[in-house]
């Protein structure tokens, strides 16, 4: 028989890590042992390529950088990442496995993080498959590789932000379609807040201070600094805090659904 850990002991922390790891592996398997992750990655890469080359006019800029490529990341994340996260909690409700999951010897937040990390790994894999673009610009010219690496890192963090919103929305909704629509809607608010057209509208009616304040909550705003090759600590802090906030809401909403 299993010897239970003492309260607050290192064994407790170990048990939380065990459960988190088990949930992560189970979710990752659910993505990669089914066509889900592969279909997502393929469509994401096709869409990103189409936007970069057709709308971003990658070759016509005659510059060895990835600006036209990174330009579309927020918008593609906005639509694509909810598609991989929408099943995470909505499926548990639909399949009746929420009771099984929430009766495991692990706090809700550890299960939330396990699921989120699995979805973030799929996003990371998708991003990894775009690195041939990076190799291409190195073959074509002499890009600022440090700036590109920074933008990749911030893009990954931004993807975490969109995913955290989508995970939380999946916990709110009881079916995947509703979760997807809610995720896109909430994600759009936190993207559009950084658009110049929105900023000028807000500045005109509420003043430039209000416009700046609103823009500072946008995932887009903080990514733009990275696209210029500038590492802003506040952007780093923003993404980490944004992810933590939405994962906390996720855990609260899952906890509230305990007991049906």
């Amino acid at each position: 028989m299993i010897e239970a850990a003492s309260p607050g002991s290192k064994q407790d922390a170990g048990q939380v890590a065990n459960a988190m790891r088990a949930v992560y592996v189970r979710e990752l398997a659910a993505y990669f042992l089914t066509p889900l992750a592969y279909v997502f990655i393929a469509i994401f890469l096709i869409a990103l390529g189409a936007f970069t080359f057709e709308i971003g006019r990658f070759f016509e800029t005659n510059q060895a950088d990835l600006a036209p490529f990174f330009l579309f990341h927020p918008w593609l994340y906005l639509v694509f990442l909810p598609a991989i996260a929408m099943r995470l909690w909505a499926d548990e409700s639909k399949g009746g496995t929420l009771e099984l999951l929430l009766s495991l010897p692990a706090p809700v937040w550890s299960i939330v993080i396990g699921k989120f990390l699995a979805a973030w790994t799929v996003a990371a894999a998708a991003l990894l498959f775009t690195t041939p673009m990076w190799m291409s610009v190195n073959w074509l010219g002499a890009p600022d590789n440090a700036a590109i690496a920074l933008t990749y890192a911030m893009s990954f963090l931004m993807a975490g932000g969109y995913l955290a919103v989508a995970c939380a929305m999946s916990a709110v909704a009881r079916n995947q379609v509703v979760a997807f629509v809610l995720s896109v809607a909430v994600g759009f608010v936190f993207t559009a807040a950084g658009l110049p057209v929105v900023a000028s509208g807000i500045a005109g009616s509420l003043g430039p201070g209000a416009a700046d304040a609103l823009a500072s909550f946008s995932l887009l705003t903080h990514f733009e600094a990275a696209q210029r090759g500038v590492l802003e600590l506040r952007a780093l802090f923003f993404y980490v805090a944004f992810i933590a906030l939405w994962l906390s809401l996720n855990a609260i909403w899952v906890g509230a659904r305990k007991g049906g």
Partner: protein
Amino acid sequence: MSVNALPPNAMDALQVENLSRSFGSRQAVRKVNLRVAIGETVAIMGPNGAGKSTTLRMIAGYLEPDEGDAWINGASIQSDRTRAQLSLGYLAEGAPLYLDLSAKDFLAFLARTHGLRGAEAKDAIARAAEDAAITDVLSRPIETLSKGYRRRVALAGAIVHDPPVLILDEPTDGLDPNQKIAMRSLIKRMGQAKAILISTHQLDEVEAMCSRAILIDGGEIVADSTPAELAARAPGGRLEDAFHALTRGEAEV
């Protein structure tokens, strides 16, 4: 009638004290007290909506009680939840499963969540699979298994970490007579070394497997004795008659 509050007792693997829960204005469970010692298999019976599943869900930590607590192997489900749940095997109503996984992967997932890894996990899965008689279907996806096998896979999941306390919510529901006999035999065997609390509508099952029967109605315990004593309280001397006499028929939901 409600049983008085009981002080925690180190001899009992499962102790429940004053457990209560309301849903809106409806009091689903009212001050339930019970104890189950190692070697005991106790049935919790009652009409639909009587509060059986709500009680089990609170003991398992899935549902927060409004009042009261449960101690599993000495750990409080309220204040020391993880430790309590490590000592508990819980088969929820309807036996929820991840249908996309094979039976083996499902058991491996549950073994890992309980801290079992490597050879220890492998041995635990083999033992649970043998106990639940699912060794021949271990590699098959759960979605391809019959209802009887699915129920046994769920039971194997509840026992994979060899917990001292088992809570089984209607484990034989939907099984054919042969499967029921096999499941009862397994529960009876496990009951020799574990404390088992089992919710069931099958009165013959209670007589065959359980050393004690708790009858719950309207969220309250109305009887707690051996099945034979309970049956003797009815004019016909049958458990079915006692059930009918002590409950108010179909509970309001």
